[in-house]
């Protein structure tokens, strides 16, 4: 069992990192989700995987031997919920970014970091990407 989990962990981490290295921002977001799934597996494996018996037993009944530890299961549930929220956010963000910037190529996304046109001096930011001055309604 533990070897199957280890193999799954390896596959999800490797494929997730591979996707993250892509220039396509949508693939990066997906890759992060896959890496997150792999890490959740690791968290789950940190409590034993030995048994499928329930960890919580009714009062009076004997303690189950080789039952898996319920704490990592609770932890992994928390991590899944948080990861879910982050995946939601990253998808919404990537969608908006691709729509507004008109490209999904990470190398062309230079709105926050303009490309220097000069070897020595840093580029001046495009005024369209700066806060509006003077602030609305003021001279």
């Amino acid at each position, binding site marked *: 069992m533990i070897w199957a989990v280890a193999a799954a962990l390896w596959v999800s981490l490797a494929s997730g990192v591979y996707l993250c290295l892509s220039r396509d921002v949508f693939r990066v977001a997906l890759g992060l989700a896959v890496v997150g799934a792999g890490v959740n597996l690791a968290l789950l494996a940190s409590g034993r995987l030995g048994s499928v018996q329930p960890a919580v037993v009714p009062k009076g009944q004997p303690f189950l031997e080789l039952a898996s530890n319920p704490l990592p299961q609770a932890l992994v549930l928390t991590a899944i919920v948080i990861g879910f*929220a982050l995946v*939601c956010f990253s998808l919404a963000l990537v969608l908006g970014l691709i729509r507004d910037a008109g490209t999904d190529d990470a190398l062309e996304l230079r709105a926050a970091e303009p490309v220097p046109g000069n070897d020595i001096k840093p580029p001046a930011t495009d005024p369209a990407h700066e806060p509006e001055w003077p602030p609305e309604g003021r001279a």
Partner: protein
Amino acid sequence: MNSRIVILAVVARPLYLVILLASLWVLLRGHNEPGGGFIGGLMAVSATILWGVAHGTTAARARLPLGDAVWPAVIGLLLAAISGVPGLLDGEAYLTHRAWTLAFVSVELKLSTVLLFDIGVYLAVWGALAGYALALLAVDEQEQEGGPA
């Protein structure tokens, strides 16, 4: 103009109610069995998404408690925070939970601060995730109607 599927729009009406009732059942079942606020909240979100696909995101948003996604989230968060206070008043640690059993004529009603916490989680999950989902659906709607607004 309206490209929505008629069958889905008709079926959505009873299904919405059924899914919400099922989510409430899951919420209350969480007292002693698998279930609870988070999973119930997720089911409620699926009902909202169904309505959003069938009748549009504006209609789905209006169907949420108090007519917006933020309100359930806020109320849920406050409920969950308040549920820890009774333990505090008794001089114990925050979030020490209390349970009472109320006996009516033939029915026993089990009440606890954990239930309050769970209802809070239910509302918070419903509000927050429905907000996300509807925002994503709205992007899709805009594109179908010809580019960003």
